[in-house]
């Protein structure tokens, strides 16, 4: 309908920087050391544990991982299951069943109540 909408779409295809970012973070190749003292999302550290990589690989595509950490520790396993399902069903997160299981187990164990 409007030029903005098509531009929005066009931009979307070109800026998968977030996804790229998640992949780089997962691969451990993203590193920015500058003189600036600005913190950024590369500072976000998730607890070590089985499933952590699945979270980093899957959960950083649309938002930074502070979304996960600030929502802790008050969700139980069912609560985290619900969040992961919401990401897939409501927000269209492309996450397969095996990863989804591993992710909610990790989140319940490390960021659950």
């Amino acid at each position, binding site marked *: 309908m*409007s*030029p*903005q909408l098509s531009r929005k779409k066009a931009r979307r295809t070109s*800026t998968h920087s977030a996804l790229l970012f998640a992949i780089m973070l997962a691969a451990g190749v993203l590193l920015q050391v500058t003189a600036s003292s600005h913190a950024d*999302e590369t500072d976000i550290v998730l607890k070590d544990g089985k499933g952590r990589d699945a979270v980093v690989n899957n959960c950083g*595509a649309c*938002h930074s991982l502070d979304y996960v950490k600030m*929502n802790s520790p*008050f969700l139980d396993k069912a609560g985290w299951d619900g969040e992961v399902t919401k990401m897939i069903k409501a927000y269209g997160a492309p996450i397969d069943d095996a990863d989804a299981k591993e992710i909610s187990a990790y989140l319940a164990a490390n*960021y659950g109540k």
Partner: protein
Amino acid sequence: MPSAEIDRRQLLRLSAGGAAAMPFLASAGASALASQAPPLDPRLPAGVATEALLEALPGKAPLIKLAYRPPNYEAPLSVFKDTITPNDQFFVRYHLSDIPNVNAATWRLAVGGEGASTPFELGFEDLKMKYEPVELVAVCQCSGNRRGLAEPHVAGVQWAVGAMGNARWKGARLKDILDKAGLKSEAIEIAFDGADGPALDTTPDFVKSLPVWKALDPDTIVAYEMNGEPLPHFNGFPARLIAPGWTATYWMKHLTRIEARTKPLDNFWMKTAYRVPARLFPSTQRFVSQESPATTPITEIMVNSLITSPIGAEVKVGEMLTIEGIAWDAGFGIAAVEISQDGGKSWTSAELGPELGRYSFRSWQFSLGRPAKGNLEVLAKATNAIGQSQPMKALPNPAGYHHNAVARLAITVA
């Protein structure tokens, strides 16, 4: 130590030429953290404290960072000492992370839809020159402001008290724009889209609608100025919707499209998000075409107040102590703010400050004289012109909206 941190440091050593780089990182990291730790409400989930930082987005003052991407930054309590919130300290809230820089010179706003007989487009100069400018002061408050204080906690951005601000907005009446588009009598909702979009296109774009009656309210405007300046990028440059009295979910930023609809907008952001249990809150303003038996869309702001001073919980014995704060509601107007020092058994009226408009923060103050040594707790409760006031406890609801429990401040006089 968590492994990501180790990876990062090991990498640094590899990439930045060895051990010489380490002291730099350690000192830069440490000082950044020390200067950036914001004052946090102890009622927030513990996880917030590990992530929240005082950080400045480009063009903004340092605010409390809750999420980097999309940017979600709230104002520290100290910001609310001013009744008008400075633009650079105004909170930032996005759902979706693909946020373009909009160029006002090429920006176009498309106005149309099935419910409009004469669709058209306008540019930034048209918006400023072709419509009668109106100005009003209004509170922009996130529906989920204070979600982080909800008991029990609920998932979402864990805001404390600062996901709100009060500004003088200048813009064109939405009604005048819709008149030009030839609004048909069948139109029931007006929908709004902004330039920001999702990172992945499987995520529903953020598009919201208003009932026609609210869209035609002469106070609903398409704003291009905030406190006499262009809108900051992160607050919706070049133009955003101002729906005074209603929560900020309707205040679409970076507006690109206004659509007159003959059918209710059916998307995640209307049908699933931003809904409250029917009849839980004493709302009087309805959005009938979006109601269901169990839930209704959130509409107007609930009457609320905040204690802004003193900020520290310790005051010196023998000194005069004045409690200061702000109160606001959906535009009915603040009738009274009352203070209790006995846990809510008895209340005494505070003195209201100047009125900047019915949708604005209203300042208030109350002298406690020279309180005796010891601990005291001060409660503040606002009542609006239709007799609504704040509950002692926030009303629990699944998404943690409308947190408007009486304000409380514990003070130690020593």
